[in-house]
């Protein structure tokens, strides 16, 4: 691994990983039993939680298969190692900004998990241009539509936003509300207005609490400029770099 070639993104753009149902060949099973899969993921997690939001999607992808990893998954892990090799000096850059305001971005991927059909939530928060909080995680329940998925991701982001707003208000920076950008117009409508539609009947209390929430404000953002996109999809290199530059994740100097 030490003399491997670095790559530009931690994930493969074309394929999504699958927890394979077919039985593994004996040779593959032997191979996987000798591989430190979970400890490799543990190490990624630590980096991801501290300073590496760029790993979030790739790590959330491989850690779904912890209980029975297969050769394909180990290949994906090795890809992350190769990516890290080329980007070991990447980190978060914090600078000063004229207005120190809290901004969030949310995004979702419908039925991202190919086997269980669960969807993915992704969000990121910046405070005066400094990235402070991010997440890429599977949603707990299965959704019926993209609108619903975006709406749920939005709710998750709003919860984090309310907490962050409380914390920074306490620290002496007054923020009346947190701005959250979402790229799904239908989810925004659902959050702002009491739109009722046959297909949104089942969305209940847990996700409707943001309707009456005054501590956040919703805005529309184009998918092209939504940095949370990289937490939910295997985006190509150009988009990946664009997202990272929006969040001020880069090398020092």
């Amino acid at each position, binding site marked *: 691994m030490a003399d491997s070639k670095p790559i530009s993104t931690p994930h493969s753009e074309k394929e999504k990983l699958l927890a394979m149902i077919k039985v593994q060949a004996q040779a593959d099973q032997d191979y996987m039993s*000798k591989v430190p899969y979970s400890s490799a993921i543990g*190490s990624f997690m630590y980096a991801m*939680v501290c*300073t590496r939001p760029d790993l979030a999607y790739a790590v959330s992808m491989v850690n779904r298969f912890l209980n029975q990893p297969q050769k394909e998954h180990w290949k994906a892990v090795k890809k992350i190692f190769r990516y890290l090799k080329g980007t070991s000096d990447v980190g*978060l*850059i*914090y600078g000063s900004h004229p207005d120190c305001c809290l901004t969030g971005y949310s995004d979702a991927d419908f039925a991202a998990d190919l086997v269980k059909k669960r969807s993915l939530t992704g969000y990121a928060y910046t405070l005066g241009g400094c990235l402070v*909080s991010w997440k890429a995680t599977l949603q707990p329940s299965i959704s019926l539509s993209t609108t619903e998925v975006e709406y749920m991701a939005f709710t998750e982001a709003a919860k984090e936003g309310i907490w962050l707003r409380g914390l920074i208000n306490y*620290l002496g920076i007054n923020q009346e509300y947190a701005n959250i950008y979402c790229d799904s117009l239908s989810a925004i409508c659902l959050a702002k207005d009491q739109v009722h539609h046959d297909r949104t009947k089942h969305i209940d209390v847990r996700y409707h609490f943001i309707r009456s929430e005054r501590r956040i404000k919703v805005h529309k953002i184009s998918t092209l400029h939504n940095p949370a996109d990289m937490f939910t999809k295997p985006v190509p290199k150009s988009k990946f770099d664009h997202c990272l530059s929006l969040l001020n994740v880069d090398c020092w100097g």
Partner: protein
Amino acid sequence: MGYGDGVKGYRIWSPSERKVLLSRDVIFDESHLFHPKLEVPIAGTQRCHSPQEKDVEFTAKDSEKGGHFETSPVVLQEGEKLEDFSANESHLAAEPDPPQLNSRINQRPKRVTKPLERYGFEDMAAYALHAAEEIDSNEPDTYQEDINHPEAENWLLAMKEEMESLYNNQTWKLVELPKGRHVVGCKWIFKRKPGLSEKEGIRYKARLVAKGFSQKEGVDFNEIFSPVVRHTSIRVLLAIVANQDLELEQLDVKTVFLHGRLDENILMKQPEGFEVQGKERYVCQLQRSLYGLKQSPRQWYMRFDNFITSQGFKRSLYDFCVYHNKVEDGSMIYLLLYVDDMLIAAKNMCDIQNLKILLSGEFDMKDLGAANKILGMEIYMDKTQKRLFLSQKDYI
């Protein structure tokens, strides 16, 4: 005969009463060896011999083909044999001594242990992860190992140092063991650390820890939750530092858990190798929390929280490890606590200095100067461009 299913205690065959009992109050008699001659097969697997009033030996043995099982001879001595041992809980004696293998059991063929065949070193990644675990070996694991270790002198010196600091802190006082009280064990941990400066050489550290796992809930501990700061809070603070161009300093508390005071009355065995002459049977009644106790982090946090709030700091409702205070000129001073690490941020350096003096008056502090590493995140500051950079270069 072994351990009871689902309950704490030994299963014991009592030939005098001719039944199987459950008891935690067992004393193993290691001086008696059982006589193979006297063994007579009885239905099942138990056999016994020479039942003497309350002093009974027994053993269990598998039938001839199977080889011997795990038992060693056991003598019950005036212990309460209760089927319902929970009623007996209030007057438990000290823990039973670990059963030592007698000579007969030593004769049985030992199981050959095979090295694990994981980590086939398929590639460098696997190797690197494995190697990282191996690096800090060659440190003694136990006291027994230590006194036979080639560097025993250095380790002994380190242990003496630790004992001295424990005495100076009045960590415990020796008391006679009250009857029926539970005693927590303790252990020495040895660690080799690189010296702070070139000429100092390797430092040998020994630390006495309590065996927290042998504590009993409700007796030895009640509440053990202790908050730690969220990574997000750290980044929020750093973002504010970058935005408002604040000074950022880091402090470290030495022997952090020894600052905590205990609410519970905990008894601990005397540390190995440092038993007080003539008082070998005494136990240590802990006054301060010790490393390894379950409530240590909590007691430390409570102590710190009490102190800092008494100094006018306010605790955040959103993260219990974030404190702030207003200084005279109206600017804010922030304090962030992660167990023994602290980050302090303020506009003026003199405010930070004042706080440092305040803290070192109360706790044993180490000043680390400008913050450069917290929780594995490296912090680089660029004052001229008012920028701050967070990364994990060393970790990756």
